[in-house]
């Protein structure tokens, strides 16, 4: 019997559908708010969104990447020199034996580099497709970067400890978490298990890795940025060759996924001078930067040259690179004409 004011079946069904609809809408809004997502997930999602968007709107889709700030300390310091007045700093305190501390620095560095590479689509996404065209420039007029993270080494970490850090070896012999491949194999599509010879590109290591006198105490924090750089080019072989001969890759012992590189010459970078690309850590004998030199020169550069996944038919080739460089204006700007993402 249908009493006055009772709900009819139609009303109940309507309300049920409305509630379900609200739940979907609320879920969508929650998703837009990026509720529980980490900064890395947000960044990756925005990179995917941009790369798969139509070239007409690609430039207007922001990369929602915020530079991570990591401080490694061996005492009570919190990298105040590097991150003064900045927020959301992840402070990691070294614990255990000397070997454990070294391993922690190596692991954090390797992961920072891998995360940067992975989040930005392993260099296979065209992230800046129409960006330069939007500025009224040709596609190959500039490189665009995202500073994925800044890693500061507090002055409480001794130079002796830093000198024993070998990120290169760590990446060659340790597996990426959740993977059966080493960091090196992951960066090179499983093609490479050892680092390429520097002789191949007439590289002169003695000019770059003499780091000057070592000191046991450090008076300043030292800071490295893990940055992702992408550049468009018509000929990927030329791009890779120029990257290598410029010294940007090989100084850091970098290795690329594209192992076969045809010859040619395309100027990819705004600055032609090889030394300028590397900046401070290429300068021999600078005592103030000795520890940073040692540490930075061990960090790898990894890159990918090839066809991007993009909707832009006219700009499918280019090179991407992830590299650790000292966080100074000279170093970063020599690699990056434009920086996207939030500081």
């Amino acid at each position, binding site marked *: 019997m249908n009493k006055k004011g009772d709900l009819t079946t139609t009303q109940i069904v309507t309300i049920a559908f*409305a509630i379900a609809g609200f739940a979907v*809408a609320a879920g*969508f809004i929650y998703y*837009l708010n990026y509720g529980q997502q980490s900064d890395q997930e947000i960044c990756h999602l925005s990179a995917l969104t941009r790369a798969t968007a139509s070239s007409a709107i690609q430039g*207007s889709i922001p990369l*929602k990447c915020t530079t991570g700030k990591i401080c490694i300390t061996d005492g009570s310091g919190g990298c105040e020199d590097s991150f003064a007045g900045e*927020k959301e700093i992840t402070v990691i305190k070294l614990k255990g034996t000397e070997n454990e501390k070294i391993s922690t620095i190596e692991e954090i560095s390797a992961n920072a580099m891998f995360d940067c590479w992975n989040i930005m689509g392993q260099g296979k996404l065209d992230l800046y497709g129409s960006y330069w065209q939007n500025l009224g420039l040709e596609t190959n007029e500039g490189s665009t970067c995202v500073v994925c993270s800044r890693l500061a080494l507090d002055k409480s970490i001794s130079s002796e400890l830093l000198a024993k850090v070998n990120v290169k070896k760590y990446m060659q012999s340790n597996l990426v978490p959740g993977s059966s491949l080493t960091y090196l194999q992951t960066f090179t599509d499983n093609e490479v298990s050892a680092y390429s010879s520097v002789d191949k590109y007439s590289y002169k290591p003695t000019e770059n890795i003499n780091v000057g006198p070592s000191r046991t105490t450090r008076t300043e924090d030292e800071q490295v940025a893990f940055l992702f750089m992408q550049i468009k080019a018509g000929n990927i072989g030329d791009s890779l060759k120029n990257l290598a001969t410029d010294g940007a890759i090989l100084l850091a012992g970098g290795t690329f996924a594209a192992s076969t590189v045809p010859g040619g010459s395309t100027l990819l970078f705004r600055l032609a001078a090889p030394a300028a690309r590397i900046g401070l850590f290429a300068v021999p004998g600078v005592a103030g930067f000795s520890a940073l030199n040692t540490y930075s020169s061990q960090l790898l550069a990894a890159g990918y040259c090839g066809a991007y996944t993009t909707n832009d038919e006219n700009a499918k080739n280019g090179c991407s690179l992830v590299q650790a460089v000292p966080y*100074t204006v000279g170093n*970063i700007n020599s690699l990056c004409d434009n920086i996207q993402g939030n500081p």
Partner: protein
Amino acid sequence: MRNKKGDLMNNVLGVIIAVIGLSLLAYGAYKVYQNVVNSEEQKAKAIIDSIEGKMNALNDGQIGKFAIQGIKDWYITGWSKTETGRPDKCALESCICICPQSTEFGSGDFDWSKEKTTCQDKGFCRKTENHVAVISSGDVAIVADIFGLELKEIELSKYKDVRPKIILPSNLVEISIEKKKDDVIIFSQIQEQKVG
């Protein structure tokens, strides 16, 4: 006979559902807009917050050099509380601001009064108790004055069109922040500085 109570309940439910639905839709659209359009503003806020933080972290007599991420077509400027012509959002305090350029500095179209309006409407300011000067190497005449005198003695507004500022590049810029007594000087050595 019509069931008035049932009709009323049906209508009220419909209205409530419609209102909630429309609200959700509007909020969703707003969030989409925020995500797509406001990224530059978020970046600008992050930059000015970072500068404010670094400024506050310095002690009297200290100079700090910092690498700051720039935004193309934005600039940093500042007003001391003794200066006239400050944006309203600075109220009675000194402030540093990051503002979008509305005209090209150094061009014939340049109009500082337009810039001030844009700074008020679209810029982000942070108040400080110190006298503030934000200058770059391009502002030659002002640099000479500022480094020779205490800021409270300088009427920066006398420079009219050459408002002291740091035009931001699209990559990194190094800024020096000097804190002395009641003054804060934010200085940048910019290579290709256009003087407005």
